[in-house]
């Protein structure tokens, strides 16, 4: 029990690191706030000094605590049958960026709530920009003036074996950086990591279920075949953006170089580094206002010290209603000077003698009776068996392994002609894309 451990730690008189928690219990809270509250507009945009298609995200806050970002795979819940994301995106808005030198860039909605600049553009230093939004309901918003404060060049992105704060062994990714121009006191780091996934139970063939009618009487009708796979799903690549706020300040010295600042730590047991791994680190030079916004947001959403919490409160964003109404707008819009660099490495580069991290999903080899009672049987018999094979295939939750083999799956009542694994163990497309990214170097 966590509390016991907490007590013991207190007993020996220790301040608890975040990860240990003294006696922390997670509360089951579904919704927050009061019903009548209207959802606030959330604006997110990081406009850069690189010539790219710039993006603006518009969404609404929710009373629900959990916006269902869960990426935990449940082999019994078919993929795509529930939202993995239930953010209310704000569609149908008009978005543009205007410079005080007279330039104006129009944005067009791509995916719902995501607005892309009509053409790639870069922010110029020395120009003040404002983001201008008119929502579908006709309300007009604008951001405070945005200026690219400075530019700093990432001179090196590198990985080393390291021990984390909490004592975990793993790989740390560090950056070195040299200021180039402007005021470069405040930095934020984001990254996009891409890792190769190889399905551990991949075989060249898979089930194919056709003409399936679970309601047919007296028995369901179907054709089950073992066919060669048509799509490549043995090797995939998954790309994930950073979710944490990683910042650094050279506190008061704008010209200071940065050396060996850690931007990411990956534990040795994390399966994302079991095959080849790549990270694209982006360094953003922020304004002091943006820096404090992110810092406050981070402080409010973490707990360093169970004895003393930071007093949370409303964080003022830099987007406001044009008509002077004090409506609370969430999020932040910023203009940054960026520099990025990519790094590749393999697990063996750092841990040549260690075992690869374990595949994180349960890949028990299973068997099940091939068919089931008709769903339309007016007098169904109670069944002791779990879902039949064809039902599972129909749900798309299994991957073929072989013909039934007593050594692979134990004998039981619910035995069928094949053994199989949860689909995630034999089909890597559940964990990434089967297309090798352009930048990928083996």
């Amino acid at each position, binding site marked *: 029990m966590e509390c016991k451990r907490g007590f013991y730690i207190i007993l020996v008189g220790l301040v608890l690191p975040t*990860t240990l928690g003294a006696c922390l219990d997670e509360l089951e809270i579904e919704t927050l706030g009061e019903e009548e509250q209207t959802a606030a507009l*959330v604006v997110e945009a990081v406009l850069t000094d690189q010539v790219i298609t710039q993006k603006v995200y518009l969404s609404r806050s929710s009373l629900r605590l959990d*916006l269902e970002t869960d990426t935990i795979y449940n082999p019994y819940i078919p993929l795509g049958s529930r939202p993995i994301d239930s*953010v209310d995106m704000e569609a149908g808005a008009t978005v543009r960026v205007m410079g005080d030198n007279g330039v104006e860039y129009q944005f067009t909605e791509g995916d719902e709530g995501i607005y892309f600049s009509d053409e790639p553009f870069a922010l110029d230093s020395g120009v003040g920009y404002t983001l201008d939004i008119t929502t579908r309901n006709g309300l007009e918003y604008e951001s405070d003036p945005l200026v690219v404060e400075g530019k700093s060049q990432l001179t090196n992105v590198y990985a080393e074996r390291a021990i984390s704060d909490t004592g975990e062994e793993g790989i740390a990714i*560090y950056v070195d950086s040299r200021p180039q121009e402007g005021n470069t006191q405040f930095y934020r780091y984001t990254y996009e990591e891409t890792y190769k996934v190889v399905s551990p139970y991949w075989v060249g063939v898979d089930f194919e279920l056709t003409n399936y009618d679970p309601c047919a009487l007296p028995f369901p009708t179907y054709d089950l075949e073992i066919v060669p796979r048509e799509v490549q799903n043995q090797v995939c690549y998954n790309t994930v953006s950073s979710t944490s706020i990683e910042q650094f300040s050279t506190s008061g010295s704008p010209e200071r170089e940065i050396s060996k600042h850690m931007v990411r730590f990956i534990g040795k047991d994390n399966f994302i580094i079991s095959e080849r791994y790549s990270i694209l680190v982006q360094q953003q030079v922020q304004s002091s206002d943006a820096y404090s916004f992110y810092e406050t947001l981070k*402080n409010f959403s973490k707990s360093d010290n*169970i004895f003393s919490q930071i*007093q949370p409160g*409303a964080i003022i964003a830099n987007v406001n209603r044009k008509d002077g109404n004090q409506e*609370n707008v969430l999020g932040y819009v910023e203009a940054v000077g960026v520099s990025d660099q990519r790094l590749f490495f393999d697990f063996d580069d750092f841990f040549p003698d260690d075992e690869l991290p374990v595949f994180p999903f349960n890949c028990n080899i299973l068997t099940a009776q091939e068919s089931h009672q008709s769903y339309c049987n007016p007098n169904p018999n109670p069944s002791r068996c779990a879902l039949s094979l064809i039902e599972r295939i129909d749900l798309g939750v299994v991957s073929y392994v072989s013909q039934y083999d007593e050594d692979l799956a134990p004998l039981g009542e619910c035995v069928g002609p094949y053994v199989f694994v949860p689909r995630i163990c034999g089909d890597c497309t559940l964990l990434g894309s089967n297309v090798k990214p352009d930048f990928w170097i083996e």
Partner: protein
Amino acid sequence: MTLSFRFHSFIKKGSLFAIFLMVQFTFSQNASITISGDSKTSSEFFGELEDKSGYSFFYLDDWIENIEVTGNFVDASITEILHIVLSDTSLNFYVLEEENRVFLLQNTVVYDELPPSFYRQNDSTGGEQEVMARGNLPPPTFYNDEVSQTRENLPVVRVGRADEQNLKSAYKLSGRVVNAQTGAPIPDLAIRVQESGRVAVTNEQGEYELILPAGYNVIAASAMGIRDSEQEVIMYNDGTLNLQLQESLEQLQEVVVEADAVSNVEDAVSGSEEISSEGSKDIPLVLGERNILEVAKALPGISSAGEGATGLNVRGGKTDQNLVLLDDAVIYNPTHFFGIFQALNPFTTEKVNIYKGAPPVEFGGRLSSVLDIETKNGDTEKISGEGSIGPVTGNLALEMPLKKGVSSLMIGGRGAYADWILQSLDEESLNNSEASFFDGIIKYHHKFNENSEIRGTAYYSKDNFSITSDSLYNYSNRLGSVRWAHKLGEKTTGVLTASNSNYNFGIDYEGEGNSNFELDYSINESELRYRLNTRLSDAHTIDYGLSAKYYAVQPGNVEPKDSDSNVEPVSVDQEQALEGALFIGDEFKVSERLLFNVGARYAFYAAMGEATQNTYQEGAPRSETTVQDTIAYGSGEFIKTYGGPEARVSARYLFAPDFSIKASFNNSYQFIHTLSNNTTVSPIDTWKLSDLNIKPQKGYQATLGLFKNFNENMYELSLEGYYKRMDDVLDFKTGADLLLNENVETEVLQGEGKAYGVEFLLKKNRGDLNGWVSYTYSRSKYRFDGDTSEERINNGEFFPSNFDKPHDLSVIANYKFTRRYSVSMNFAYQTGRPITYPVGTFRFNNSDYVTFSDRNKFRIPDYYRLDLGINIEGNHKKNKLAHSFITIQVYNVLGRNNPYSVFFVTDDGEVKALQSSIFGVPIPSITYNFKF
């Protein structure tokens, strides 16, 4: 001369049991003797006298030991010789002519008549039995030594020499009472004559005078701090009796309680509490650590944001509004380890006086309360010590006389040994963590004479803790004070105090890169105070004086930690200020029933250069963009002065000697503030001096209460209400960055606060079962209503403070089974504290975050906790090396998982609601205390 009597006596060493029998006979003038007393010892003289007179003498050798015989007697009668020889002694004599015997008698005379009542008592049939009485004689004194000695060890004292010519029914006894240890006179000592109930009280010089009936009397002396003693006295004549009395350490506690009990009703000042360190030793607290500050929270009106929250909130005031003094010097953080343990050695601490209402006029500078902690004076007679071993700390205190009866030294040390336990734990993640603390104190006390004494105290405490492996935090208190108390005449005493206090904290950052640094903050203050007390008359006692304080704050320095580090050194300019006060107060006794305590204090404050200060545009929110002007001030130049008069008025009206009503009003200024953006106090909160842009806080408080004692002060009952207003209290903009901020005023909000409540306290001071029940209903609300939304909290409405807990109940009870075994209980119930709760979730930067709007709108569940303890005193054998005391305690017996906070974190992009608790399970502990 003819005497008629019959007499018989036995004189034996070690007893004096006289039987008087009555006979009738005559004797003639005795023969003449020539004898010289020169160069003879008294026993030689009496030997020669015996030979020459032919009489046999009966006496004890030690009676005549000190008689000096100098005269020469020629042809003198034995009666004449004895008259002269014994004239200056307490001896009488009786010559039994018939048998040629002489009896020397101590004090007494030989009664040659029956007392007037003798026959009447025996003759109930009546009949006029005329007894010839010599004057109106008191009855003779019969006294049985053996019987009396079983009662008291003090030897019986015989006073005066009976004078046949002047026998009276009562005699005057006078003398001086001094303290046996120090030789100091004991004033205000009540000397009571048992049986008659007559009482005399010693004056300032310890002198007394008492009329006692002739013969055997028992007088009893009692005073606060003096061991009650009885003295048997046989009065033969007027005389003197000087008493040397022992201090009563064992009984001090009880005596103090007694004195308090009365003062509860009689003092004009209300809202003050005293907690003695020794007296609170039985109260079970976390991990068996004695903590008078924790005990204080069990009193009405005193609370904290929660278990494990540093700082006290007194009557709805913020934690920075308490003046905590340790032997007159300010101690900025009197706790270790996030407030869980006190930073005071329990064995060197005598007591703490807490003033929640109008404090004595000499104190000032904080709005809510004064906690005046006093340490013990060292023993001036013998070396003694006390110590304890508990699960977290070891404590030791030594007292040693330097010059017997004059000066002493007390040394206390205390340390936590958590660190090595931590290292030996098989938990990898803990190996990089550390938490340790210690404190030490040394006190010198010297008494020059009755009228002057001096004491000096030096104290240091330090805490180290790490939250992550790359940052080590530390904080320390250092203070020293010297106090000289002296008498300036019969009616005036003066106390001169000089003190210096320092508080600092640091962060030592040592990570992988080139950013290693050391950060330091410190505040230093020095104070000089002179307070005089003059007793003008029975009706007026005035307190007056002045104080001056100098502050120096180093708001923050960052230095690169090593040569690889390319951290730029940062230093925020030092802040300096002067704070002074003139004060005068009068305790004015209008009548027996009505007592006023009227005080006035003028507080003065000046922020001083060298410094630069920004001015900001009127009406605009303060920020870097609204800076109007930057003014530079030279060294010592006044930047801004603040100040004003403060009133301290309290009144008491006695309905009955044990029932009173009291009212008070006071206002105060506070010139220094803590900057904290945490919901509770953190050790790295900084103190900030008022300056051009940050105004002093002001407070006003009015109280009204009823006080009643029952059963000879065994029970104390009080009910008191208060209403408080505060102006210009500090809060901060959301997410304010306060550390190392040169323009911290851009983050500061100043607003108002109000607090009100009713406090109930029932105390049982004596008996096998003692303790108290306290209940408080109170509210504490603040309002920050600036011009812009950034400067407003909750739209400028009043909101409950982080420590607003309307219902607060504490029960502390102690039950003594025997002299050695007792059990204690501590129960606390409080309304859950308010916390800021989110109103929604939003997606940003690929993660979900919660958004907050109104401050403190939600409350965590109510808090309750029960602690139990068993206290076992070691046996009381006389020759043991050390006296021991063991406490076995269980904190949070019910295992209630009291929430300390509910908060929301973003972890891997997802929001989680977490509830933390500090001590969610029962925590047992055993502490061994010893005394030698």
